Each structure stands twice: as C-alpha cells, then as structure tokens.
C-alpha cells in the first residue's frame, strides 16, 4: 500500500489525471468505494427516518410535513395508537407472542444446543440437519405447512394465538441453537472436564460450570428471539384468525395496502424501537459478560460480523 502514501506529498493531480488513475485502478483507494458505501447507508436508513418523521405529523398526510405533534401516538381520541382498539390490540398481541416465544423457545433451544454439541451417537447427524432446515425454509412454505397442519390434522389447535405461538417457537428454536452452539464451541469442554476431575457429578458440572458460562449466549438468544418474533409477518399472518389475533406487522401490511394514516407510521416506529432496544440490550449484555475473554485485536467488529442472523450454517 506504499503507492497510497505518496499521494499527499505530490501536488494535487489534475481532475483528468485522477479520473484516468481511477479508471486504470478502480480498486485502489479511490473516492468511489466510500461514495458507494455512504450512499448505500443513506439510501437504506433515510427512508425509514422519513417514515418516523411522518409519525409525528400534525395532519393526516404521510407525504406533506405540516408541523410536529404526538396526536398519532396518544393525542387523537379516535385514530391514535393509544385509542384505536385495532392498533392497541395488535400491539398487545405482538408483545404476547414475543414473550411466549422467548419463554418457550429459549429453554428448548438451549437444551437442544447442548444436546447436539455433546451427543455423537446414532440420530445426532439427522437431528443436526433437521435443526438447520427452519433457518433456510422460506417463510411462505412454513406458513402454508403450519396452516394446513392446524386446520387438517391438529384441528384442536385451529388458527389463532396458540397456533401463532407454536409457529413462532418453531422458527425461533434454530436461532437459539446457532447462538448457543457458537458459544459452546468457543468455551470448549475443558471446564466441564476439570469439574468432573474435581468430583462434580455431570449434573453439578452442568448447572454450576456450563450454565454460568453459557449465560451471555442465553441472554443474547432470548433478545434475538424477542426481536424476530416482533418482526415476523408471514407466520403471524397465515396463522391469524383475524380480529384480535392480527399482530402489528399484519396491521401495517393491510393498512399500507388500503389508506394508511400516520398512526400506522407511529405503531411501526414503536415496533422498531422495541426490537432495536431488545437487540441492543442483548448485545450489551453479551459484551459485558464476555469482557476479558476477548484477546487483543479481536474487536467488537468481529463480534458483530459473526452476528447470528448471518445464517451461521
């Protein structure tokens, strides 16, 4: 990279020469790459910020800014998130599903991760394979499958809240497994073996050594499950029976296709803050727990680059 260092010393080359230099060497350190990158970031974030801005609009318009107000959150006696029963019910339903999902999927996923990492007998390979599938199956395929199973086979479940919770847990388990298993691999077996050498029973080694070490991954996976449950649209929609069982994303979907008010933007903003807060808390807890384990040079960036959503398969 020595050629880069010379540049500031020499007098500034003419625009034409710089352009020709860029043409002959577009992958050096041109202005082109930062331009594309920052352009991309602006393009991906700014529309969302504008949508947030219009949730505070003083009038019914979502396209013309006419002053700041909080009427779409609680001020408006009919159409605000606080007063419109449809929006309020949707928010409650979304939170209900997310909490139930965390409570059920996290323990099952943690146990499955430990089991799959330690069990090498017959059936472990296919169980591992089975666990990967929900991560790559398109949601519509899973939605169709779950809808049909609840209407044709497990008819006692039917559609509605129970079906939605079962569906959310089904796609969440694999996320928990991937996060917890990553942690299991990085801590290795030596702590458990040391505990066993010192006379701990397998159960004691598990509860007093392994579980505390897994804690950051458990908290992080709970946060991730909460966020993906809040953000889920397809499974919630296919398993909804309408009315009170519509979640916020389902409401946003139907409102956007009809004639949305800024209150749609308001409830979307609330959801965005909830899931961003959940993931941020999960990440900070992970950082706090694993402080001191990181070696020099292993940065936050590395942690984030290997974030679970990447599909660590």
């Amino acid at each position, binding site marked *: 990279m020595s050629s880069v260092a010379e540049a500031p010393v020499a007098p500034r080359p003419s625009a034409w020469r710089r352009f020709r230099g860029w043409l002959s060497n577009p992958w050096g350190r041109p202005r082109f790459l930062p331009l594309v990158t920052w352009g991309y970031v602006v393009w991906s974030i700014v529309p969302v910020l504008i949508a947030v801005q219009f949730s505070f609009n003083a009038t019914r318009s979502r396209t013309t800014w006419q002053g700041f107000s909080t009427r779409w959150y609680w001020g408006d006696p009919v159409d605000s998130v606080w007063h419109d029963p449809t929006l309020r019910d949707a928010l409650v339903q979304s939170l209900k599903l997310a909490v139930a999902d965390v409570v059920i999927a996290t323990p*099952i996923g943690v146990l499955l991760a430990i*089991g799959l990492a330690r069990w090498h007998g017959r059936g472990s390979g296919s169980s591992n394979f*089975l666990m990967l599938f929900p991560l790559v199956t398109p949601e519509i395929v899973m939605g169709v499958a779950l809808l049909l199973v609840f209407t044709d086979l497990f008819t006692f479940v039917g559609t509605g809240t129970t079906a939605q919770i079962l569906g959310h847990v089904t796609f969440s388990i694999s996320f928990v497994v991937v996060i917890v298993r990553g942690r299991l691999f990085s801590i290795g077996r030596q702590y458990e073996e040391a505990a066993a050498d010192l006379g701990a029973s*397998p159960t004691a080694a598990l509860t007093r050594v392994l579980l505390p070490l897994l804690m950051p991954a458990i908290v992080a996976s709970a946060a991730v499950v909460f966020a993906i449950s809040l953000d889920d649209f397809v499974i919630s929609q296919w398993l909804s029976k309408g009315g009170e069982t519509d979640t916020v994303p389902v409401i946003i979907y139907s409102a*956007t296709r009809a004639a949305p008010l800024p209150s749609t933007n308001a409830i979307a903003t609330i959801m965005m803050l909830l899931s961003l807060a959940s993931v941020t808390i999960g990440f900070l807890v992970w950082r706090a727990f694993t402080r001191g384990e990181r070696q020099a040079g292993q940065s936050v960036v*590395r942690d984030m680059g290997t974030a679970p959503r990447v599909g660590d398969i």
Partner: protein
Amino acid sequence: MYRRWLWPGFALPGVIWLIVLFLVPFYTVLAVALGTVDPILFQAVPIWNPLEWNVGWLNEVVHRLGPGGNLTDVALRTLEYVAIAVGLSLLIGYPVAYYIARLAGRTKALLLILVIAPLWINYLMRMLAWVNLLAPDGYVNRFLTYTHILSEPRDWLGGQASTVILALVYGYIPFFILPLFAALDRIDQSQLEAARDLGASRFRTFLHVTLPLSKLGILGGAVLIALPMFGDYYTPNIVSGAAQTSMIGNQIDYYFHGGPQPTIGAAITIVLAAFLTVLMGYYLWTIHRSTQQERTT
C-alpha cells in the same frame, strides 16, 4: 446408562418439537397436494396414506407452470425478478462489503452498525417507508418534477416492475452484505501482500486473490436472499398489487386466502419447495466441500 442417555435426552424436547411442528406439517402439505377435492364443497381432502396418493393436481400445476400453461408467465417473471434483484444486490453490495471490510478504518464499527440496523427494523415498516416516498405527491415525485426529470408525477405504485425489483433489493440486500462482509473480513492480509510483492497489480490481486476467496460469501449471500425472494408475496402486494407484477408467492397466497382451491396452493408450494431444495442443497454442498478442503490442507 444414565450417561449414555444424558445428551440425547437434552436434545429430545427440541427434536420432538421440530418433528411434530416442522416435519409433520410438511407431510401435511404433501397429503393435501396429493389429496382430492370435495366435489360439492370444493374443500381439500388430504390423503394420509402415501400408497393412495393422487398425483392429478400436482401434475396439473406442473403443466400450468410449464411452457404454455397459465402460470408460465408468473414463473418466468419470478425467476426474472429474483435474478435481477440478486444481480443488483451483488452490484451494490460487493463494493459496500469490500469497503467496510478492508478500507473503512476507524469508521468500520459505525458503518457495520448502520448496515446491520435495517435487519432489525421491521420489513413491513421499511416497505411502508417507500410507499410514503413513492406516493403520487411523495418526496420522490416532488423531487423528480422539481428538477424537471419528470414533467408530471409518475405512478410508481401502480404496477411497475422496476418498483417491485427495487423494493426486493431494498428489503433483502442487508442479508447479502453481511455474509459477504464476513467472508471478506476473514481474508488474510498477508495473502494480498504476497500477490502484490510478486508483482500483481491491484486489479489483478483483486481478480485472482480477493474475488476467489470471497466466492463462498457471494454464493452464501445470494442463496440467503434468493430463498426468501422466491417465496415473497407481500413486497409485490404492497408496492404494486397489480396482476402484471404477480410472483409465484402471490399465487400461493391467492389460492389459500380467498382463492378457490387450497389443493392447488399446496401443489404450487410443493413445486416451489422442491425447486428451492435443489438451490439449498447446492449451497450446503459447496459449504461442506470447502470445509473439507480446509481440513485437508
């Protein structure tokens, strides 16, 4: 005995859950797609015994999707939209991932946060944002007419293929950039220096070292975004809603929600899942092969 059953016992609840609520539902789709239809009520009647399966409906759907059928256009359109959207994602995503992984320096962490953030913002909110912007009196039309690029506002949301493709790119591109970033970030700096020391130009270094080393990242990201795009029905519905931009997912949605026959919907789902399994299988196989190579070298 206790030790032998300890670990499988841990896995048991999760495995049972996935069998009952993942494998059995798949079997149900098969049973419905290969079942019959009640002649009076037009309701799907699943056939649970594989020996009695009726391939009539599946055959019909395959014919409709094949050349000359009434779903041919939809199938080709879906392939076209996904191919263009994945191509555009590569075109935009590669420079972004490359810059963040190799050249961003002190802004690396900030950029990474900004690239990851959209993953945790509700997909439908991000679509809603564009619906607001692309409305007839929205910011996009106002900007384009103000600068005289357009003489009058364009109806972006009235069934334009370009809007649907751009919405797909906007929705899924973060899932493409992240695995690509991870692949580029993992490349050992010394390999690039070796290439440069041996006299390769920057461009040749990129072409012969960086690009091959990031191939798996490109492939992984492309599969990761192509899979949900093939099953997408909400994006075209939100930003267009017109029949001329309908994708295969819209057909499945139509046959189940208010449509005439879930059996046909289930049969399309089976065909789609079979097609995507080939895609997934290829991807998992390349990963498997590359890890094998890593182990042997």
